[in-house]
């Protein structure tokens, strides 16, 4: 379990990092928290000739709010997300989900940007991003572009981010009055990927679900947005009947791979169960019951 040789780069600005990425092309990989990449390198599945370490770029850290948007710099660690007063107040779904990722030590290195860009179907933030309608601020040598989370994830380990681009920040809207969130994740043990998980973000007005986003983790090649399930509930008051209909729709889009966590049938049902629980919990929070 020894990584192969590589050259290590430690840029101090994003521009320096972009130059390095352009210079080394596909031979370069970005090192963020390292808890996905370094194990892959130790297994010798990944052998980048150049590692560009973003850990020392100040501008990639921090969480701030402006114009109704919260902007989370990509290298913000999971533990920073969990303890951010701003997020706890205005976007509690992110700290809630982050606290369910891995373990304390891994969370002190692992970053939100790394989790998103690595796009392992088992990673948690992609579904959270879909549920929050987040956008990604991406920097390349041609400048900045902003890409919505929806459509960003192309497949397992595959996103719209090009090899010479860097995810700079994540933008999420500030949660509005009457909103509720939940992330329900079933896992075998601490440190494991989800067997299945469901992220729900919704807004309730007068008992009616004005808006709901549902996204699923680890039951497909990417995080999945359960749109059909959302439309069942949108504009409705929550009932057991509608809930079951929505859960059925969410299960219908799942296409998980079987592994030691369970077979397809189990995972699909668990995606359904986690969705059911997340909707309930989010509703309860939105209506003051949580």
């Amino acid at each position, binding site marked *: *379990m020894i990584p192969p040789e*590589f050259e*290590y780069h430690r840029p101090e600005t994003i521009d320096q990092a972009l130059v390095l990425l352009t210079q080394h092309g596909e031979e370069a990989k970005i090192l963020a928290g390292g808890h996905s990449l370094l194990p892959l390198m*130790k297994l010798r599945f990944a052998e980048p000739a150049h590692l560009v370490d973003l850990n020392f770029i100040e501008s990639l850290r921090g969480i701030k709010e402006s114009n109704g948007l919260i902007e989370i710099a990509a290298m913000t660690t999971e533990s920073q997300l969990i303890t951010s007063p701003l997020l706890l107040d205005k976007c509690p779904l992110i700290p809630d989900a982050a606290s369910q990722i*891995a373990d304390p*030590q*891994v969370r*002190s290195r692992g970053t939100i940007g790394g989790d998103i860009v690595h796009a392992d179907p088992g990673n948690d933030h992609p579904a959270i991003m879909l549920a929050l309608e987040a956008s990604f601020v991406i920097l390349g040598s041609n400048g900045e572009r902003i890409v919505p989370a929806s459509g960003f994830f192309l497949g397992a380990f595959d996103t719209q981010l090009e090899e010479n681009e860097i995810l700079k920040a994540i933008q999420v809207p500030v949660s509005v009055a009457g909103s509720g969130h939940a992330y329900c994740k079933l896992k075998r043990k601490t440190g494991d990927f989800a067997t299945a998980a469901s992220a729900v973000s919704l807004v309730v007005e007068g008992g009616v679900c004005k808006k709901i986003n549902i996204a699923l983790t680890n039951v497909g090649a990417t995080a999945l947005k359960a749109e059909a399930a959302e439309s069942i509930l949108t504009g409705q008051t929550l009932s057991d009947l509608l809930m079951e209909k929505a859960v059925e729709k969410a299960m219908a889009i799942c296409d998980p791979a079987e592994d030691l966590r369970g077979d397809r049938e189990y995972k699909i049902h668990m995606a359904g169960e986690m969705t059911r629980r997340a909707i309930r919990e989010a509703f309860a929070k939105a209506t003051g019951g949580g």
Partner: protein
Amino acid sequence: MAKKHISFTLNRQNIDVLVEPRELLIHVIREQLQKTGSHIGCETSHCGACTLDLNGQSVKACTVLAVQAEGGEVLTVEGLLQNDKLHPLQEAFMQEHGLQCGFCTPGMLMRAYRFLQENPQPTEAEIRSGMAGNLCRCTGYQNIIKAVQTAAKNMASA
């Protein structure tokens, strides 16, 4: 690959070593610097036996490159003893029988050390989640929890 000079502090001492970029922090600490208290148990960042304190945070040193410690502050179990006085956690682990084979113990102590700074008066549930990144095969954790509680109590009254 060309080796790099890096410097950092290890247990409050200035250190200057020559490392390959790919060298893992745990290997440099254990083999070059001969501080063998931190152990290697799984190599995939699951067991926590290599846990040490880097810049005021608990990290698993099997998944950190030594070059990433450049300019940083590293504290290992060997640095817990100060002025020949054991840390209250060390005392408590002995008192409560919080260790058996001793292999996970340095990582446990280092995580508990940081955890009690993050949360000086934890509940049992908080200890369980706050220590969840460290595996022990011998104790069943119950006595480690007691040890952390005892240390928290002793530190509060000290």
